[in-house]
């Protein structure tokens, strides 16, 4: 409870801070197929990889209580950015500072094991996010209720539909009461009813002064729910500000391309 009042006291302090972050990937162009080829390449000193910066010298500050929309075309570095913030990647250069507990909803059912039941997965997923067994047991019932998957809760996850998996994943990630919620496109899977339920919960999160990082290709959602939007291109932020303005700027960039296709 003390963490809650701390959050409210310093309403607008920074909870996510990235300073000059670069994430470099080594892309192996082609794998040698045979030992002979490896030797051939070795002796001819051929380089079979190149380095590629998915995030390039990026700085970003997110104050607590903000819902930040991250937009950009495929391959612009949105998911990489979220994974750096979630601590999955340790960046090649730069500093990352994240304050408070973070719940990642990065891909559908990350950490779900298909042979285990929904109930077993709730516990395992919670433990993976760093919560205790007791905390998860206490929240189990409300997670099951929110996910609304009925008797399936004691069936192995592999028998779930993808929508059911998303619902369970979202329920676990949000019911554990994180300070920061990271959502990467996963909500596109659920049906309209569940999406509304999710956004109702996300709005409640915002009211409680929590921070949400939201990646999507659904521009109306950004304009409707976010307080701020950033537009990524080739690993850098090229626009940052009011969601409506950033979205229309993004559209102005992509429109010529779409016209060319027509």
């Amino acid at each position, binding site marked *: 409870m003390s963490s809650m009042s701390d959050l409210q006291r310093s309403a607008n302090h920074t909870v996510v801070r990235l300073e000059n972050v670069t994430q470099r990937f080594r892309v192996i162009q082609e794998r040698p197929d045979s030992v002979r080829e490896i030797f051939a390449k070795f002796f001819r000193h051929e380089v079979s990889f190149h380095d590629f910066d998915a995030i390039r010298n990026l700085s970003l500050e997110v104050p607590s209580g903000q819902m930040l929309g991250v937009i950009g075309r495929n391959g612009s570095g949105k998911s990489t950015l979220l994974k750096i913030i979630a601590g999955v990647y340790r960046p090649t250069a730069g500093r990352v500072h994240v304050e408070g507990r973070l719940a990642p909803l990065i*891909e559908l059912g990350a950490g779900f094991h298909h042979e285990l039941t929904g109930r077993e997965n709730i516990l395992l997923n919670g433990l993976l996010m760093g919560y205790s067994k007791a905390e998860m047991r206490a929240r189990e019932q409300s997670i099951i209720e929110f996910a609304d998957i009925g008797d399936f809760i004691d069936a192995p996850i592999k028998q779930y539909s993808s929508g059911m998996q998303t619902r369970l994943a979202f329920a676990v990630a949000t019911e554990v009461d994180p300070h920061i919620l990271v959502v990467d496109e996963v909500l596109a899977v659920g049906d309209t009813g569940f999406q509304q339920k999710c956004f109702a919960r996300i709005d409640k999160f915002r009211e409680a002064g929590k921070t949400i990082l939201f990646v999507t290709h659904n521009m109306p959602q950004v304009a409707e729910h976010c307080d701020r939007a950033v537009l990524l291109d080739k690993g850098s932020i090229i626009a940052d500000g009011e969601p409506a303005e950033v979205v229309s700027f993004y559209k102005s960039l992509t429109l010529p391309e779409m016209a060319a296709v027509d």
Partner: protein
Amino acid sequence: MLELIRSTYRYRELIWALALKELKVRYKRSALGFLWALLNPALMMLVLTVVFSTIMRFAIPHYAIFLLSVLLPWTFFSQSLGYAVDCIVGNGELIKKVSVPKLVFPVAAVLSNIINLLLSFIPMALLVLAMGHPFYSTWLYLPVPVLALIIFTLGMTCFFATANVFYRDVAHILQVVLSAWFYFTPIIYSLDFVPAHLRWIFRLNPIIYVVNGFRLAIYYGMLPHWQSIAASFACGFIALIIGCAIFLKYQDDFVFYV
């Protein structure tokens, strides 16, 4: 080392859940379920006992017990490595999505096999009684070699799991290494069978000291010499320190290679 102890303690609930998951998945969809953890070593013992008391007769009395006293710890070692070499690569999807201390995976993989090892002592004890072999009080000493063996296994596991991330060939090489290592270790034979002038080569085998403790305590009813005990822990801690250091050095790169 300290890092290992700290994160093991902090994530003990997660490690326990992962180890149980491992066992649950292993025995899922089998009618007898978890009972296989007991039945498997029991049936293996039955086969070996029949083979070595009727078909292949050695001059060693109660050969089945002589063999199994070392075969059980060896099976723990080789199965732990066999499962755990894949513990990082196999959890790759998880590592790519959730930030989690990577050390929990080898620790959990070894833990699930510890449970198997401990359970396998139950049929072992039954066999000792059934064959009329004396049930020595030195059984009480067994926790000591079990501990040394766990330390050694964990160290080797950390090393092979790391190596397998960068070179998937490691998992295949490991199978060959383990089967050669099996014959190089006095499991089906005794070190006494080896010509005296060659024994020093066998003493270079780091696992020989710890398995020796098992055989002495269960089969001979004796305790190993303190030097042998010290050697078994020295080998264990050297393996753990090296394995752990390599694992921690490369753990941040795992996510790019799994």
